[in-house]
């Protein structure tokens, strides 16, 4: 079974959250959870001299859902096998087995599994499996106004976009083998050097 992957062009993402809205609308996700999250990275300082500003801040956005990892730590963390790799190679949750213990949430470095108090269960992006099996792309991908997202099998995506999967401040991908290929923003290197942070964690 091929691994699916998202391509995330952080050089073009404006942080508009059309992807997130499309996800909410399609999957009827309530406001307690965000299956797709848009991180705002912010760093850099102002230097003022005689009323003139010389050094500048920088910023970029990372739109992230479930990366359908090749090494899904969420599956390993689940005590009930509710979190499992399903028929179509997509990591999904069997809500009948889920006890809402949140181990998967703690394990996942991308915050993909989230507890939904309304559904009283862990929930997570399922890559719009119902779309994917009919050949459609996930709702978020087809929503992007600047076409900064793409989706397909990992081999399709890496052929088109290469294999870059590191971006500050995302975790080192080595341990997870995420289905994620990234085009870094022009300030990604600077962000790493200056250890830029997520601007407003409460907003995520």
């Amino acid at each position, binding site marked *: 079974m091929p691994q699916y992957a998202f391509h995330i062009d952080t*050089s*073009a*993402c*404006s*942080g*508009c*959250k*059309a992807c*997130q*809205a*499309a996800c*909410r*609308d*399609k999957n*009827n*996700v*309530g*406001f307690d959870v965000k299956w797709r999250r848009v991180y705002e990275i*912010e*760093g*850099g*300082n*102002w230097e*003022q001299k005689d*009323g*003139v*500003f*010389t050094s*500048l*801040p920088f*910023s*970029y*956005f990372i739109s992230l859902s479930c990366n359908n990892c090749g090494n899904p730590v969420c599956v390993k963390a689940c005590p009930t096998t509710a979190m499992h790799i399903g028929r179509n190679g997509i990591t999904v949750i069997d809500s009948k087995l889920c006890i809402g213990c949140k181990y998967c949430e703690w394990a996942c470095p991308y915050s993909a599994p989230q507890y939904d108090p*309304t559904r009283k269960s862990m929930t997570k992006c399922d890559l719009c499996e119902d779309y994917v099996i009919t050949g459609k792309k996930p*709702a978020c991908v*087809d*929503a*992007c*106004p*600047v*076409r*900064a997202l793409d989706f397909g099998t990992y081999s399709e995506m890496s052929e088109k976009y290469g294999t870059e999967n590191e971006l500050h401040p995302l975790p080192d991908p080595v341990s997870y083998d995420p289905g994620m290929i990234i085009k870094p*923003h*022009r300030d990604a290197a600077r962000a790493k050097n200056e250890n830029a942070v997520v*601007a*407003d964690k*409460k*907003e995520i």
Partner: protein
Amino acid sequence: MNAVTEKTRGNSFSRRLFVKLSALTGALLLRKGKKSDDTASVLSGYLASGEEKIIRTGCPAHNCGGRCLLKVHVRDGIITRIETDDRPGDDVSDPRLRACIRGRSYRARQYHPDRLKYPLKRTGKRGEGKFERISWDEAYDIMHREISRVVRQYGNSALFIPYGTGSYTNLNGRWPAVRLLNLLGGSLGYYNSYSWACTNIATPYVYGTLNTGNQRQDWLNSRYIILWGWNPAEMIDGTNSAWFIKKAREKGARTVCIDPRMSMSAVALADEWIPIRPGTDAAMMSAMAWVIISEKLTDDDFIRRCCSGYDSTQMPKGCENEESYKDYILGTRDGIPKTPQWAEKITAVPAATITRIAREYATLKPAVLYQGYGMQRRAYGEQVVRAGAALSAITGNIGIPGGWASGLASQAGGEPFWTTFPMGDNPVKARIPVFLWTEAIIRGKEMGAAEGVRGADRLDNNIKLIWSVASNILVNQHSNINRTIKIIGDEKLVEFIAVQDNFLTPSAKYADLVLPACTQFETWGVEDGWKYGEEVFLTPQIVDPPYETKSDYRICADLAKRFGVWDEFTAGGKDEKAWAEWIINEYYRKTRFPEMPKFKELLESNAGVYVRPVSEPVVALAAFRKDPGKHPLSTPTGKIELFSKPLFDMKQPGEIPAVPKYITEWESPFGSEAEKYPLQAIGHHYMPRVHSTHDNNEMTMNAFPQKVYINETDAGKRNIRNGDMVRVWNDRGALVAKCKVTSKILPGVIDIPQGAWYNPGEDGTDFGGNINILTTERWTPLAKGNPQHTIMVQVEKYRKG
């Protein structure tokens, strides 16, 4: 399609859903403030079971700059999902029209528990927000009685239908109301808009036309693009504008964003962000001109052939000895050369940066200097429009592929119609500048040419009756709310106010009569592109109007019956669908789009949109550039007027100079007012809203809550931390809102995204975060436009009590 049975089923279900919503939320109408997430839980909890239909339609865009395609899923008469354009292809000539968060979040607005359901009559004091439910019969009686009385007592020119864009198809919104009043003897008219008052008036003084924009696909031919105060990724200035810029970058164009904020566009579309002090753009532009002229980077041939007033050799007759554009830039007359060092102190942009950008713009040709509209909603907004156009002119970036003439830049080769619904002639000829309607309430009879009145020497009435359709201008979107509510709260001034809308907006709370209108999904309409676009959308009725809501057209048609003009109003009995058919078959097909499918065909195809692909983008002013003698502009000289004799003849050189100048604003960091109010406040167009529409949409506002954006330096000085509630105030009023401390805004500037709903506390402090509690009603000198971004304020950490 079995329309009849579906209708019945749909109606019962939508009613049931609303009952469910109401049960969850209790008494809805008069509640203050914002709600919990009822909408979301209902949306996610509702499982429709019937057969699914998918209908393609235009996004209810309101006054968004984009026009996008939605694929609306309907089951049992309920909208269950909203997808967007998935047409095959998606190339530059005919890209998918993908909706933003506003379109994708529409269900939360559509099924909002606060939707107006019944006509309401005021029971308390005006503005108090107390109403009782009445029947449509009684509502129509009141409308009929009040309109007739005011016409009898004062005349038709005392009636006014304000500017409003809360519903904005060719068929919905204020147009039917205008048509009705025109049949009844007319009403006071207006001209211009709140969006681009200054550029709308100033651009023709330079070019003799508003059509100064190339079709957007032409940006891919540019080598250098300046996004000057332009934020298409957020404001959606044209569906796909951001994507076209991305494509231009992929082809090698360098892009620069000049803006006080590191906007979403600065992050995603620009190679470089240059922060600039608000209201000083014309100073930087003048300094760029100084560099370009001093370093001989001008396109002399273009200037000689196509411009007028550049230097002393080409001054118009009778002005031979006046100050030319070049005189001003070099400081020949005023002794102030507009050097980058001069501009640095004003703009806060380093002189070296100004010099570099000037060189890049003048040498990396063809180049685009795209002006956003925020910079012209300012005290001297007219100047910046002309200063930008002058840069395009002296570098010869006009009339060529990949260039851009700047100015308003309505699309060459055919602009949208905006509205095609026939409103008929207004027997009242007098028109006021749109921004001056409160003046026309308090002293209309004193208003004449000096206040920009057109069509009459003087108004013969003060406004006595307001019928506000799909508009939040009465309170929320006009300047200086505390002043506005005093004026419209006085029943001796405006004697009757009717508001027709989807929600009990801050404006609707000031109504004597509230008429519940349905949404765009619940009636028929036709949309076309905003400033750009080669698209015509057919927006069919997708679900039934819930409860007693009706379309704007239906309300007016019912009223027409009361007035005995139903036949004339409906043109012999046309309903909404028949008008949509008329607009497509009799208007679009007979004017700009003769090749487009007929109404029936378009409807049956369920395409939702007709698009004319653009493979060879039209370039504005190309014929003029080629042969200015044969294709003169409609300016007095037939050329691009860097010096304008008509403006010179106005004899107000301090505020309306004949050449574009930087003028210090009436409220600025450079005046004594800065001692008390040291921060500039701007109110940018915010991603989750279209003006004030969607402010009550939890789905958009959850993603982008209303906030005051403040630089960490300014926050630090005031002991303000990220997430604190802050109080922002000046002499006109005060607001309280949560703040976001950020490095992405210039120190000395705060941003309060415009459009939040006014929500006053007992002492009049606004807790909605509406910037108009702080803005001024003073109008710009030439356009009589709104200067809502020119304000100085102070900020402190908010402490209750």
